[in-house]
Structure formats: structure tokens, C-alpha cells
């Protein structure tokens, strides 16, 4: 190992080594994230699809039993909010706001404020909770803040639902994958340690250390973001995006549609609701 430390790039001048180290360590660290993603997919197993002719899908459609959200079947009832959460927090905000505005218990006033109408009570418990949160003056000053608060407070339950449906990975698997994604940073650290055999510069050691800490932080953030969703969830969202083309076009064109249809498009596309968004007063959320 000592001999290896005397070969290029470890033997290079400080500036050359640091530049090479930063490039190499970034690539290797990102490689670690990639490995974690691949391992996660392998552990997830094959993507399951719903054969519509199966009796399971039939019974869920008829009697409203929660079905696992799989390619081949549109979400029913409040499954759409689980779907929105999987697509991202902004999508959940869009789905909640759209559900409220389309059902008539939420209104964006001309002054751009959210108004919750007391006399309309949502049937779904999740929306009833959302309404309570939005009605709370402490939820935030701007409509966006209040919506974000509502989405954040509803998220734990929806995450539990998504995990139960096999769409989010279990906590222990997520933790394992995050640790695995740090393997690249460990390899990069070894490269840095080898340099210390030939360099006694404190300044250089500090730079290597800062770079490694920065990379470790970035890798953890990336890994949390990229390894939470089960492979099944990505397949589900991808299938759903392709399966609502006509509905999406109708919503954007402002066609009169049932509330559930508009909420489904909001769950998948966020606030990009075109004329329907403008009609519901939700275009305030797409304006920068």
C-alpha cells in the first residue's frame, strides 16, 4: 500500500492531486448511490401488475376494499392521496387543494387567501382532517404554507399506508440502503488516506476531510430521496402517468369532470391543471 501511494495520482503535486481526488471521489460516491439503487431494486423483486380479470381486482372495485396500487388499475377513493404522496409532497398539496376546491369546501379568494367554508364537510376522513388543518390559523400565513403544513401533517399516515401497500420500503431496508450508498464515500476516503502516506500537509488533509464530509452528506440526502420508494411504486407512477392521457387533456382543457378525476390528475401532475386549475382558482399556486 505504501508503494501504491508513490504512484500517480498520489504522487502528484497538491493542486493536481486535490483536483483529481475531488473528481474521482464524487464519481465513486455517486457510484455508491447507484449501487444502493440497484441492490434495492434487486431486493424489491419483480414488479407485480394487476390482471383486471382477477377476482381480487373485481372484489376491490365492487366493495371498495383497498387494493394494492399496481399497474393495471386506477386508484379508488383516498388511494389517490397515497399516489400523490409517492409522486412528491407538492403533488399531495395539489391533490388536497384540488379535492377541496372541486368539492366546494376550499376557495382561493381574490386576495389570494385560502378560505375554508364551514358548511361543507368532506366525506373522507383524510379530507376532513385536511380541512381542520387548513382552518387552523397556526398552519401558516400564506396559502402555500398552510397547504404544506396540511400535507406534512397528513404524510405520516399516508406513508404508513404506502408502506403497508408495499410501495415504500420498510425502514430497516431503507436504512441498510443508505448505509450501502455510503460505501462509495468509504472507498473515496481510502484514496484520501493513501495520499496521507506521501503528503504531510495539514491543509491538504483538511481539504480531503471537508470534501469527504460534504460528499457523505450529499450521498445521504440523495439516498434518502432515491431509495425510499419501492420499485413497485415507480412502476405504478410511471404506468399511471401513461394511463391518464385523455383525462389529463380534458382537465387541462377545462372540461367538466367528476371531482375524483380532477384530483387524480392533480395527484399525478401536481398543480399543472390548465383551465380547470384556473376555474378552481388554483392557478395561484403555479404563479411564481
Amino acid at each position, binding site marked *: 500500500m505504501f508503494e501504491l501511494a508513490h504512484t500517480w495520482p498520489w504522487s502528484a503535486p497538491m493542486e493536481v492531486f486535490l483536483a483529481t481526488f475531488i473528481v474521482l471521489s464524487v464519481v465513486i460516491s455517486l457510484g455508491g448511490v447507484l449501487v444502493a439503487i440497484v441492490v434495492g431494486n434487486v431486493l424489491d423483486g419483480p414488479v407485480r401488475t394487476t390482471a*383486471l380479470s382477477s377476482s381480487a381486482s*373485481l372484489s376491490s*372495485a365492487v366493495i371498495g376494499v383497498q387494493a394494492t396500487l399496481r399497474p393495471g388499475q*386506477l386508484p379508488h377513493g383516498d388511494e389517490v392521496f397515497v399516489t400523490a404522496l409517492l409522486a412528491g409532497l407538492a403533488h399531495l398539496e395539489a391533490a388536497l387543494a384540488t379535492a377541496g376546491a372541486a368539492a366546494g369546501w376550499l376557495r382561493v379568494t381574490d386576495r389570494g387567501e385560502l378560505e375554508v367554508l364551514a358548511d361543507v364537510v368532506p366525506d373522507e376522513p383524510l379530507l376532513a382532517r385536511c380541512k381542520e388543518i387548513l382552518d387552523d390559523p397556526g398552519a401558516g400565513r400564506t396559502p402555500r404554507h398552510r397547504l404544506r403544513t396540511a400535507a406534512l401533517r397528513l404524510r405520516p399516515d399516508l406513508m404508513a399506508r404506502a408502506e403497508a401497500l408495499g410501495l415504500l420500503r420498510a425502514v430497516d431496508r431503507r436504512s441498510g440502503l443508505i448505509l450501502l450508498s455510503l460505501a462509495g464515500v468509504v472507498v473515496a476516503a481510502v484514496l484520501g488516506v493513501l495520499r496521507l502516506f506521501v503528503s504531510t500537509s495539514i491543509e491538504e488533509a483538511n481539504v480531503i476531510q471537508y470534501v469527504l464530509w460534504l460528499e457523505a452528506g450529499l450521498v445521504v440526502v440523495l439516498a434518502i430521496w432515491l431509495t425510499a420508494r419501492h420499485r413497485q411504486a415507480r412502476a405504478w407512477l410511471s404506468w399511471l402517468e*401513461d*394511463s391518464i392521457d*385523455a*383525462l389529463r387533456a*380534458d382537465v387541462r382543457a377545462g372540461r367538466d369532470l367528476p371531482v375524483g378525476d380532477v384530483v387524480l390528475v392533480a395527484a399525478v401532475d401536481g398543480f399543472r391543471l390548465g383551465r380547470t386549475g384556473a376555474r378552481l382558482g388554483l392557478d395561484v399556486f403555479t404563479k411564481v
Partner: protein
Amino acid sequence: MIPSIATVLAMLPAQTRVRIEAFAREARSQLGDDLVSLIVYGSAVRGGLTPHSDVDVLAVVRRDDAAFLARLHGAASLARAAARLDLRVLHVDEIARAADVFPLFFDDVRGCHAVLVGVDPFKDLVIHDEHRRLRVEQELREARQGLRRLVIDHAADPPTMRLELEALHKRMRGPLHGLLQLHKSHARSDLTAVLDVIGARLGVDTVPLTSRAIDALTAADATARLLDAAIADVDHLQTGST
């Protein structure tokens, strides 16, 4: 005109075709022998399908209890979301019995459809001209009343009035085509052809109905003239059966 289903499907956008075929497979699988036929009709067959058009599909079934129909829920909602499939379901016994109250709808489907699954249930259907005449008159009078309301509602908004007039013209296509059938005229059933032939027959200029260069109020007046002439015509018709 009864084109082959292959011809009709070939005319559809690829994405729509795939979804319709998937729906047909699913319907056959879910309903089995109780699905008598699955038919595509409307603009998908007649021509004039736009990216915003519904794809009209008619299912003819032997059973219509709730549990049976619910089997189609998943496939129908998916086909609607993906390809704007608009499903209508008829019981097989209903076709002959309802021909007196739906003569124009049945004429429309019978005259221009393609069979996706099963047999053609409209092949031997008899529709009486008297039923056609009554339905034509009813729908034309409804259109005339709707036109008055439309003008009042949208007088201050000409672009919206234009759009509403276009929608009204689409609704008028069926009864006007029915009127032509009562006159034993075999005009094509698309809106442009129907307006051309009926306009010539009744001596009404139909150009203002479709010309974008003409203002909405003038188009509304032209529509009213056409409807008045058509109502007067159907009111005095002597009818038989076909």
C-alpha cells in the same frame, strides 16, 4: 356503411387503438358469453374524430345485474381515463323494444359502426318512420328552444356563443340526418354533409352556421332559420317503415 373493425382501428391514433383493443379483451374476459357484442360507433367510425372527441363504444349484454356490470368497472374507468372511451350498455332484448324511443340513436349506430366483439345486433332491426318522425321533431324542437336560451345566456360573450353553437350543431346532426332518411335521402352522416344536403333541400343557406368569418348572432339566426324550416318540414311528413 359498416366498415371492418380493422379499418376503423387503423384510422385511430395508436394510443387510442391500443386502449380500445385492451378494453375489448378485458370486456370479453370479464363478461364471457354474456357479452353479445361490443361496437364502436360515432365519430371514430364516421370520421371527424378529434383529439378531444370521445370514442363511443356500445356493449350489448345478456345480463345487467349490478354484480355483472361491476366487472367492467376497472377496464371501463381505465379506458375512459386513457382514451376517452364513452361506454353505453344495452340489454340485448332492449334493442328491438327501444327502437320506438331511440330511433335516431339506433339509426346512427346501425348506419355507421364496427363490431369489435361478437355479432351485429342491429342487422335485422326494424325502425318505423313514424317513430323517427316524432323523435326528429322532438329533438329539433328541443334544439330550437336550446338556441333561444343559448343566445340569451351568451349574448355578451360571442366566442362562447360560437362554441355553444358548434355544440348545438353537433346535436342537430342526428335529427337532421333522421329527417333526410325520412325523405329517403342517403346522405353521408357527418355534420358537413348533413348540413349541405338539408340546406339544399330546405332552401336554407347553411354557410353561416360553419363559417368562422361570420359573427355569432348572424350564425344563431341562420341556425334558427334552418331549425324552423326543418321543424315545418317534419311536421307535415307522411311516414312509413324501414
